[in-house]
């Protein structure tokens, strides 16, 4: 417990302490004023003017293990690394992940997500999905912190934004080639494996496209 300290005579007469306080504030004010003016003139650039970060122009460095907006890692040919095992959907304590799995033409991959949604309005950023993923398919390292939207629907990320963290809602055009439930086109299934692997690879019989 913090005991209230008895003030001494100098402090009790009040006025000197007031003057001391005003002096501290004024010193900060004039120092900051000087450095801000100097920065404008291009001087003393190496010295920080105020301790405040000028967000969003200036961002604080994040700890390397901090959890930020999710992303899905992508294979070379532009399909998600995710195999739709639904472990993240299972482990998610907020139940913000929705996965529908589909058949991948490559028998060594077999399964992939036709739909993968994360509702950021519900997500609690616990990072369990990243921990549990056996394929390193989901990560929370985009360093995107400014997640805000005007509607609940706009908080729902789908394959488009998750596979390309640069994209923001509303996504104008669908660039995913593989078959997926496309939110941009009214949840219709869009894309084909031929577009991913090319006609010839598919025709060679090593892959059996199902579309």
């Amino acid at each position: 417990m913090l005991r209230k300290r008895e003030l001494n005579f100098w402090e009790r007469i009040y006025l000197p302490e007031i003057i001391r306080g005003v002096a501290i504030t004024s010193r900060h004010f004039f120092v900051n004023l000087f450095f801000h003016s100097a920065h404008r003139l291009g001087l003393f650039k190496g010295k920080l003017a105020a301790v405040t970060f000028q967000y969003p122009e200036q961002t604080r460095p994040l700890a390397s293990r901090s959890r930020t907006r999710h992303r899905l890692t992508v294979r070379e040919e532009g399909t998600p690394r995710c195999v739709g095992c639904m472990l993240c959907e299972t482990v998610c304590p907020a139940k913000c992940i929705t996965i529908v799995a589909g058949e991948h033409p490559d028998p060594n991959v077999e399964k992939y997500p036709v739909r993968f949604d994360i509702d950021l309005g519900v997500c609690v950023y616990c990072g369990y999905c990243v921990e549990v993923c056996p394929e390193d398919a989901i990560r929370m390292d985009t360093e995107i912190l400014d997640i805000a939207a005007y509607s609940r629907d706009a908080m729902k990320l789908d394959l488009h934004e998750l596979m390309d963290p640069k994209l923001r809602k509303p996504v104008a055009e669908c660039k995913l080639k593989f078959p997926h439930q496309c939110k941009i086109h009214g949840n219709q299934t869009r894309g084909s494996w031929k577009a991913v692997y090319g006609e010839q690879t598919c025709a060679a019989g090593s892959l059996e496209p199902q579309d």
Partner: protein
Amino acid sequence: MPTLTIDGKPVTVPEGTTVIQAAEKLGIFVPRYCYHPGLSVAGNCRICLVEVAKSPKLQIACNTPAAEGMVVLTRGAKVEEGRQAVLEFLLINHPLDCPVCDQSGECDLQNFYMTYGLYDPRFKEQKVKKAKAVAIGPKVMLDAERCILCSRCVRFTDEVTKTGEFGIFNRGDRSQIGLYPGKTLDNPYSGNVVDICPVGALTDRDFRFKARVWYLSTAPSVCGGCSRGCNVDLHYVLDRPHLAQGARVMRLKPRFNPDVNRWWMCDEGRYGYKFMDQKRLTRVTHRGSESTWEEALTALAGWLARAREEGRLDQVGVIPSARLTTEELFLIRKLFQEALGLKNCLLDLPPKDGTSDGFLIQADKNPNTMGAALLDLSPSPQPSPIKGEGGGAGDGLSILQKALDGQLKALWIFGHDLVGLLGEEKTAQLAKQLELLVYQGSNENPTARHAHWVLPGAVYVEKDGTFVNCQGRVQRVGKAFKPLPGARPEAEFLVELAKRLEIQVQGRTPEELFAWLAREVPAFAGLTYEKLGWQGMAVNLSSSSRKRGSPIESGMTNP
């Protein structure tokens, strides 16, 4: 009758019993891959190792006959070390693609690894690659890499279906499961190989990637696909509507019943569950426009009450269905036949025709034909199929014929398809000449379009009840989940209708109705839901003159 001691507990078993069966009798579980109680013993997986006193090496429990004075230990350091080593061998070439494997969650490799394995793998060489994701039949997918060569599927197709599609080919670590050249796995029981496969080598194409098995809830039920009434477990998901286009039922799995289906079920029944979610009726409609249950109740009770006053009840026809539960059929009999005194309340439509194979599949595709017969609602337990196509002049069509002749003014149908029987034109004409045509059923069907009143019913897993199978066995179907919003169990509506007509009904729930049924019908005397349990009981057939159905064979007789 040798007496042996397993884990310190003595047990006496018949001659020829194996140690694993004796342990089972004591409730001691011995892990197994290749051993299956319904198949011959192969003894090749070696996971069921147990320690037998005075024997220098561990013995396999599945192929060691129980002997007098035998002392068996199913656990202990030596046994566990042995099982761990067996698992390490079995997993050498296993691909460990659990994330994509549909079996994970119910896989014995996973389960036993967690119990007996937990070793650091020492295998540093390249795993042998084999074929993956091969569709070996319309229902089954093969992944040869995941197979541990337990040969259960080989023995199943050899011994139970006697179709012999499977074989093990090549030698050593290259040996793999496969089909004989030119064969496809398309026998009517092919889905069972998925159940008996202890690993993910054989998976279900219908269930493929639909859901993870740990999402599934399970409810005991009975297959409604034919009059055999195989015991099943219904696997369903209610809280993840994004899976399988919002379907609730994900799959059926056979449930062991020694008197009905043993461990098996046919593919027709196994994949015949889709009607529970697809094309369901969920709205009460009156001549094409939406109505409510209250309006339907008022209108129908009013019509029947007026007919009763005017003495026109012989102009009302009711055709119950052998797809309804026994409780509902009994209520229909009580309400329409006895209380209202309808003469035309009989299940005299031809049954859905099919073929029987002498094993599980029955020709009669209705699950409760026997129940209707025991309640005297059908002319005979196997109504003769009508001759010729949809002409409507067959012997079995008396009520419909009367309706077509204009003798009836009202017709109440439970789930039957008149369009299939009479044709579109005649049904439309029938609807025009009747004052009242009520269709009460769970699924959309062309007849519902013509009916004046459409009352959406519940499928049998949405309501409790019993079916009586072809052997005369009363089996409880159980309630897995609530009916779809808008649909209502038939019995619930009929009880309310009886209340409106001031007819005394002794019970509202299926259980109360069954108790009433047991009091009134001698064949069901003394039966309760509690006594039936989940394995069912035979009806008291001596009280009726019905012939008993054939008991189950151990396998298909005519492959």
